[in-house]
């Protein structure tokens, strides 16, 4: 385990994992699209718009999952000074921001036909928008400080403060009266959602997760080369790939 915390070993491990993650992403995405678009029945209340959920809900889950990972990696980087954790946190931010944008846009596209509005200032939507601003803040801090170590520390502190927003997003539908429908899958006990909808949803969620790890590794590898450019292994790796 410790072996892979060294940038060099991680770089090569990531290179070996990438084809497998790519294959898993493609297969899960194809299965999820097939199940979601062809197999899942239209909802008795929301009709065919329920198919937006197969994008919207996994994207929203990922927006929070990635944020927690990014803040956790930031904490590890702050406490133990692990360079790899800094690189990971930096790679998470733009991907997490993308999932947040996707959740907000598909939510809008679902809200218009169902609620009659593209946007409402309710607790769930507003806290998810704040999540996007947090991601943008983290990215701005990383970009604005030249020293990578100091940039990572500043970004980690902001990310950790912003973690308070995650339970707010999650419980917003219970704490406040909102237009947004409550959680159906994570409800304690039996999920109040039929298997014909649940299976495509979970397949898409798995696809998004595999995709996330693939693109994070894809982002981390060049970042590692840059951070370690004064080492001989990077010099050799770059020459070999020419």
């Amino acid at each position: 385990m410790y072996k892979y915390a060294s940038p060099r070993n991680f770089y090569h491990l990531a290179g070996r994992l990438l084809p497998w993650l790519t294959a898993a992403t493609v297969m899960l995405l194809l299965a999820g699209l097939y199940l979601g678009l062809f197999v899942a029945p239209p909802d008795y209340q929301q009709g065919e718009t329920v198919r937006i959920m197969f994008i919207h809900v996994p994207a929203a889950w990922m927006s929070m999952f990635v944020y927690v990972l990014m803040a956790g990696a930031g904490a590890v980087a702050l406490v133990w000074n692990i360079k790899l954790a800094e690189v990971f946190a930096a790679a998470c931010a733009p991907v997490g921001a993308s999932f947040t944008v996707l959740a907000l846009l598909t939510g809008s596209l679902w809200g218009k036909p169902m609620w009659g509005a593209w946007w409402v200032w309710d607790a769930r939507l507003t806290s998810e928008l704040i999540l996007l601003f947090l991601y943008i803040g983290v990215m701005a801090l990383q970009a604005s400080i030249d020293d990578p170590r100091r940039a990572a520390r500043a970004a980690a502190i902001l990310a950790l403060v912003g973690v308070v927003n995650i339970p707010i997003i999650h419980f917003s539908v219970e704490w406040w009266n909102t237009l947004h429908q409550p959680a159906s899958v994570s409800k304690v006990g039996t999920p109040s959602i039929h298997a014909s909808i649940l299976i495509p949803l979970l397949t898409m969620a798995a696809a998004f997760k595999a995709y996330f790890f693939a693109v994070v590794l894809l982002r981390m590898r060049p970042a590692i080369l840059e951070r370690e450019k004064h080492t001989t292994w990077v010099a050799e790796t770059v020459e070999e790939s020419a």
Partner: protein
Amino acid sequence: MNWSEFFAMGGYGFYVWTSYAVAAVVLAFNVLLPLRRRKAVHKTLREFYRLKGERS
């Protein structure tokens, strides 16, 4: 199955297909940008080592 019915999505075609299109664009960008970055970093680093080699 009837394809025109499938694309109509019960009258919600615009909302459903725009959602899937937006997802496709966002997912594609997050693959293309790191690949471009990878290329750029390799190029910069090769230049960096070449200059370093000339100086020493």
